[in-house]
């Protein structure tokens, strides 16, 4: 019955967390306290299992430990109120263990995701609570991933729980009418977690929890709960196809390597084929969402063995659809690049002129970076230097700034024709 705890068991713990939490909530009807109790059970397991081995029924073990914490707490609260009889009453009210459905709680993961990504929560709170309650991560691990102290992260989690309590959200799946809107909030939180992890992955960050991997794991869980949902499939595909390029997008000195300069042999082929299969299935389901289109664009890049094999007309068509759908100025920027690749830099630069009026892009470094790139394509090296330099001054990302300054230096060394 006993086996040593290694990373496999760590995954087991994280995967069991939402199932155990769902069962404890069903028994005690208190999300906030149940969540604390399960967190304590997870921490107890991470200390005890490596020493004593993984128990034969790990889910039952975690459930029992969490329930004991809950009962202890109810007892001590009752004692504090000097109302001894209520212990028995409160325990009576709870369903006996035999009636609790401790079977595989696939739905519980879904319910918990909808709860933790409730629109009443601020984004940092929703992210933190999702990683803890659904992801089964400890507060310390989450704090470390976001480079903030544990006490700060603990407060974000407790604020999240207060917001859930105040919202009065019941522990059940949203109704069909609510679901579409609530699902987009869930997908957005998962997407933010993924992007948070999408950072240069060398140096001191190596020891940090890998947030992109966690986002993929949670999106997978959502996908297996809603296998027919094309939007979820699209987001999972987008994450996998983006993550496949992870090793190729950073050089040995943390320098950023753009898509057209990446060593494509470093791309993860298994993530690519899974992503392509998912997006193909999602697109065949009819309705088309922004995540699906982004994934489809990533798939077209992934299918090009060499940068010169890229099917730019196909990418341009997809960006045209995406631009019409989202109204996001970043999409419009990428659309201008795709247009330049198909019709030449002048066409791309003309599209950028339209974006100069967009307030959301005013002073944004990406507008300057794209303009510099297209000016260089068109042979205007002086203009390119000016805009690469402006972009370098405006970015708040260190690897991007280093990249942009390198472009300034590269062009400045060239003789102007």
């Amino acid at each position, binding site marked *: 019955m006993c086996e040593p705890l290694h990373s496999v068991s760590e995954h087991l713990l994280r995967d069991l967390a939402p199932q155990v939490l769902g069962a404890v909530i069903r028994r005690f009807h208190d999300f906030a306290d149940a969540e604390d109790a399960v967190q304590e059970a997870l921490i107890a397991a991470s200390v005890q299992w490596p020493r004593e081995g993984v128990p034969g029924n790990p889910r039952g073990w975690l459930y029992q430990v969490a329930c004991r914490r809950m009962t202890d707490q109810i007892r001590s609260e009752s004692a504090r109120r000097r109302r001894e009889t209520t212990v028995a009453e409160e325990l009576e009210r709870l369903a006996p263990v035999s009636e609790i459905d401790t079977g595989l709680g696939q739905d519980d993961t879904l319910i918990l995701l909808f709860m933790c990504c409730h629109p009443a929560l601020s984004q940092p709170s929703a992210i*933190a609570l999702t990683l803890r309650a659904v992801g089964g991560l400890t507060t310390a691990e989450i704090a470390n991933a976001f480079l*903030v*102290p544990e006490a*700060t992260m603990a407060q974000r989690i407790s604020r999240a729980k207060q917001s859930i309590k105040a919202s009065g959200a019941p522990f059940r799946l949203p109704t069909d009418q609510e679901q579409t809107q609530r699902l987009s909030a869930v997908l957005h939180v998962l997407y933010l977690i993924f992007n948070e992890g999408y*950072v240069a992955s060398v140096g001191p960050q190596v020891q940090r929890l890998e947030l992109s991997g966690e986002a993929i794991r949670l999106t997978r869980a959502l996908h297996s709960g809603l296998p027919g949902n094309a939007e979820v499939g699209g987001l999972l595909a987008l994450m996998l196809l983006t993550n496949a390029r992870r090793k190729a997008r950073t050089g040995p000195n943390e320098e950023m390597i753009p898509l057209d300069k990446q060593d494509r042999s470093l791309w993860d082929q298994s993530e690519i084929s899974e992503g392509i299969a998912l997006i193909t299935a999602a697109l065949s389901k009819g309705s088309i969402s922004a995540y699906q289109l982004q994934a489809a664009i990533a798939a077209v890049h992934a299918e090009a063995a060499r940068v010169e094999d890229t099917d730019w007309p196909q990418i341009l068509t997809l960006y045209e659809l995406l631009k019409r759908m989202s109204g996001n100025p970043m999409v419009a920027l990428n659309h201008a690049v795709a247009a330049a690749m198909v019709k030449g830099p002048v066409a791309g630069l003309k599209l950028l002129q339209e974006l100069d009026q967009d307030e959301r892009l005013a002073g944004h470094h990406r507008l300057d970076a794209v303009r510099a790139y297209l000016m260089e394509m068109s042979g205007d090296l002086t203009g390119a230097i000016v805009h690469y330099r402006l972009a370098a001054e405006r*970015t708040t990302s260190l690897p991007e700034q280093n*990249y942009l300054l390198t472009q300034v230096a590269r062009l400045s060394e060239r003789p102007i024709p």
Partner: protein
Amino acid sequence: MKYILLMTGTKAGVDTYKAWSEKDVQNHFAYLTSVRNDLTKSGEFVATEGLAMPHQAKVVRAGKDNTPITDGVFPEAKEFVLGYWIVDVDSAERAYEIAARFSSGPGPGGTQVNLPIEVRQIMTRATAE
């Protein structure tokens, strides 16, 4: 987004603390601690440190064979970083709001000191391709 709030001052400015009463000093530090605790509660606190007095500050350059060449003592009017807070917030405006709270700590007799706080964004390592 993370911001660093740098509290800056001159040696001459720092020396005026010597004229504060014990009560004034206690009130001032209690105020800074309470703002810091509020930031932990709001989930925005990242780090804080105070630096040793500017009187001990040295500027160092590498000399021949990388031997350190130190520079100091400095004139009274030179600005020094006295300490910093790092916060994780949703917007630049929120960082300015927090900086103003630190700036408005009580001085002698409870009058606000309104120390200058330099607010700078900390760069991320996140990138877009």
